[in-house]
C-alpha cells in the first residue's frame, strides 16, 4: 500500500477525510483486509446475504463469495472453535459474534483454547483470529442482549481487546486486529453502527495500545471507553458553562493498555473520572482507575472516581434501563463535585 498509515490522536497530520458511518468503516476494514490477504475470512450467523442484523457486512459476500463470508449454524461455541483451529493452521478468521452477551457461549474456545495456545505450546502455535462482537445498552434489548462484557476478556492473558468509539477508530483498530498474530476481541457499541464520523481516505491502521486524547482540557480527565467517549464529550461541553475544562482520553484498547497517556493526562489535570459501560463492580473502570491512581498519585488533587453501569441486569423498560447507564448529566455532576462544585 502506497499511502502511509495515519494514527488519529497521535499528532500526525490527518489526510483528507470523508464522513461515513461506523458500520461502513468496519465494512471497509474487512473488505480491504480480505483483498490484501486471502487468508482472511469471516464466519458467523447470517453474515453473508443478510450481512448481519446490523447490516455491517452488507456487500461482502457479493465481492468475496460465500466461502469467505461463511454463514454458520447457530452454534457460537462451534464456529468460534473452528476459527481457533483454522487460525492455528494458516488462516486468519474473523468471527462475527452477533451479540456480546454470547461471549458466555464461546468462553471455553476463547479463554481455554485461543488465549492459551501460544503460551502452552511454548510459542510454537499461533492463533491469529479476530472476534467481532458488541457491547452497550439502551437499545431496549433487555438483559441478554445488552451487556458490556469487555472486562471478562480483558482479564484473560493471551487475548487482546479493542474498543473503538469512532468510525475512524473502528476501521483502524479492526485492520490492526486482523493483522495481529494473536486472538483479538473487538467490541463495538451496537448503537454506534449508524453514527457518522470523519475517516481518512486511504490506508488506516491504528495500532492496538495507543490511547487518543479526544478532547483537550486542563481541570479534569475523563478516561472514557467505547461509546462512553460521547458521553464524556457531552459532559465536557456542559462543564464548559461552569468554567470547568475537561479532557477526554480514550484508551481505545484495554489490552494492550496505553497507561502512559492516561497517566500523563491525569498528571496534567489532577482529577480523573473513569467512565465505562461495564458494570461498575470488578470491572474495567476499576482497573483503569487503579492504574491511573498508581501512576499519578502525587499529582492528584482528588481520589480517582468511577462511573460504570449499575450492578443490575439490564432491565427492559426504557424508564428503568436509562437509569442503569452512565449519562452526560451524571458524569458532569460527578465532575463538578470532584472539582469543588464550581
Amino acid at each position, binding site marked *: 500500500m502506497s499511502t502511509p498509515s495515519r494514527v488519529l490522536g497521535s499528532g500526525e497530520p490527518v489526510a483528507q477525510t470523508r464522513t461515513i458511518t461506523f458500520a461502513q468503516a468496519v465494512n471497509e476494514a474487512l473488505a480491504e483486509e480480505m483483498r490484501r490477504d*486471502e487468508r482472511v475470512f469471516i464466519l458467523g450467523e447470517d453474515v453473508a446475504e443478510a450481512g448481519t442484523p446490523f447490516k455491517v457486512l452488507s456487500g461482502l459476500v457479493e465481492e468475496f463469495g460465500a466461502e469467505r463470508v461463511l454463514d454458520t449454524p447457530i*452454534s457460537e461455541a*462451534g464456529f468460534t*472453535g*473452528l476459527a481457533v483451529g483454522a487460525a492455528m*493452521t494458516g488462516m486468519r478468521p474473523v468471527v462475527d459474534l452477533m451479540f456480546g452477551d454470547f461471549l458466555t457461549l464461546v468462553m471455553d474456545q476463547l479463554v481455554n483454547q485461543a488465549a492459551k495456545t501460544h503460551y502452552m505450546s511454548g510459542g510454537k*502455535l*499461533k492463533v491469529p483470529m479476530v472476534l467481532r462482537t458488541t457491547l452497550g445498552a439502551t437499545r431496549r434489548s433487555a438483559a441478554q442482549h445488552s451487556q458490556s462484557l469487555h472486562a471478562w476478556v480483558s482479564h484473560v492473558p493471551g487475548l487482546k481487546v479493542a474498543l473503538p468509539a469512532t468510525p475512524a477508530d473502528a476501521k483502524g483498530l479492526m485492520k490492526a486486529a486482523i493483522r495481529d498474530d494473536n486472538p483479538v476481541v473487538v467490541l463495538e457499541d451496537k448503537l454506534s453502527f449508524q453514527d457518522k464520523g470523519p475517516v481518512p481516505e486511504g490506508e488506516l491502521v491504528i495500532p492496538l495500545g495507543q490511547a487518543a486524547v479526544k478532547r483537550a482540557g486542563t481541570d479534569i480527565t475523563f478516561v472514557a471507553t467505547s461509546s462512553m467517549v460521547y458521553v464524556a464529550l457531552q459532559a465536557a461541553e456542559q462543564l464548559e458553562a461552569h468554567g470547568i475544562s475537561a479532557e477526554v482520553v480514550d484508551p481505545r484498547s484495554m489490552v494492550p493498555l496505553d497507561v502512559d497517556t492516561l497517566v500523563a493526562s491525569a498528571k496534567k489535570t489532577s482529577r480523573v473520572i473513569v467512565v465505562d459501560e461495564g458494570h461498575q463492580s470488578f470491572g474495567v473502570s476499576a482497573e483503569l482507575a487503579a492504574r491511573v491512581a498508581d501512576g499519578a498519585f502525587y499529582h492528584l488533587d482528588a481520589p480517582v472516581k468511577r462511573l460504570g453501569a449499575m450492578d443490575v441486569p439490564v432491565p427492559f423498560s426504557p424508564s428503568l434501563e436509562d437509569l442503569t447507564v452512565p449519562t452526560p448529566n451524571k458524569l458532569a455532576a460527578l465532575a463538578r463535585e470532584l472539582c469543588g462544585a464550581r
Partner: protein
Amino acid sequence: MVPPKPHSANTNGTRSRGKEPRVTPRSTASKSTPRKRARKAKPGNDAGRVDTAACLFTFRQMMRIRVFEEHANELYLTAKMPGLTHMYAGEEAVAVGVCDALEKDDFITSTHRGHGHCIAKGARLDLMFAELLGKAAGYNRGKGGSMHIADQENGNLGANAIVGGSAGIATGAALSSKMRGSGQVVVCFFGEGALGQGLLYEVMNMAQLWKLPVIYVCENNLYNEYTHFQETTAGDILARPHAFGIHTAEVDGQDVNAVTAAASELITRARSGDGPAFLLAHTYRYYGHHVGDIKRDYYRSQDEESHWKAERDPLIIYRRWLLDQEIATADTLDTVEAEVRKEAGEAVEFGLQAPYPDSSEVSLHVYA
C-alpha cells in the same frame, strides 16, 4: 458451502499433498516433505506382500507408548514429576493404528490422555519426558506439561485438558485444509466422555454440512473418569454421528491391524472430498483416570482389568499375529522391546537432567 479451493494460492489444481506451497507455512504447516511410511498389508491381504519393516515400526510404536507410560507412572510414584498425568496404556492400538494411516503433515488433536497420540504421530520421547517434568527442553518449553503437549512439526496441534475441547480446533483445521486446498486430513481423538459435550455436536454438524476432511475417533475405554459410560450415555453412540449423516465405522481398538484398515478407509474418503467420518474404537484404559487413581475397586473390578490385560492386550495380540504370520521372530520382537526400553530409559534421564526454564520465560509467549 465451501468449495474445495475458494481462494487457495495453489493454483495448479493438483492435490500433491504436502508438496505444494501453502498459503502460509507460518505456524503449524510442516515445510518438510511427508515421510511416506511403508504400509503394512491389511489383515487378510496377500501375506506375501506384508511389509516387515512397517509391521515392526507399528510394534515399536505401540511398545514405545507402553514403556513411556510405565516410566511416567514411575516418575509420579517416586515424586519426580510435578502434578498428575493420565495414562494411555491399553489403548495403544488406537493411536498407532490411526496414525499409521496418516501422513506426517496431516493434523491430529489430542486429549488429556494424549501421550499415545503424540508418540504415534511421531514425537520424540526425550522431549516428551522433558515436558512432563516441566523442563525448558520439553516440546512446549515446560509450559504445557503432560496435558498440553503440541508437536507442530509432526502435525500434532496439541493435547487438550478440556474434555471435548479440541473438537472445534480439529474441525477448524479441516476447514482450513479445505480452504487452502492442502489435502490435509485431520483426526480428532477424544474419549467417550466427550460424548457428553455439546461442542462435539455443533462441529460435527458443520463438518458434514461443508464436507470437511476430519475423522472423529472416539476411544471408548468404558470409563468417563470414574464412571462407567453406560451410566452417562443414552442410546446408541453411533446413532449420534449418523443423525448428521456422517459416515460411521466401528472397530476393535485392541487390534491394530483392524484399526489401521478402518482408519485408512475413512482417511481416503475424507481426502478425496467425501467428508467427515466417525470411528468408534472399543478399547480399555489399564491405569486409573490418572496416575493417582489407584484404588478403583468401587468403579471397576480387578477381574475386569486382569481380563483385558491378559486377553485383550493390543501388544500381545499384535505380537501373536506377527509370530503366527511369520513376519517376525520372537527374538526380533524382543530386540525391538529392548531397544525401546533403552531409548525410553535414556529419554527419562534426559528429562531428569535437563534444566528448568529460566525465570524470564514466565512472561514469554503470552503474546505472539
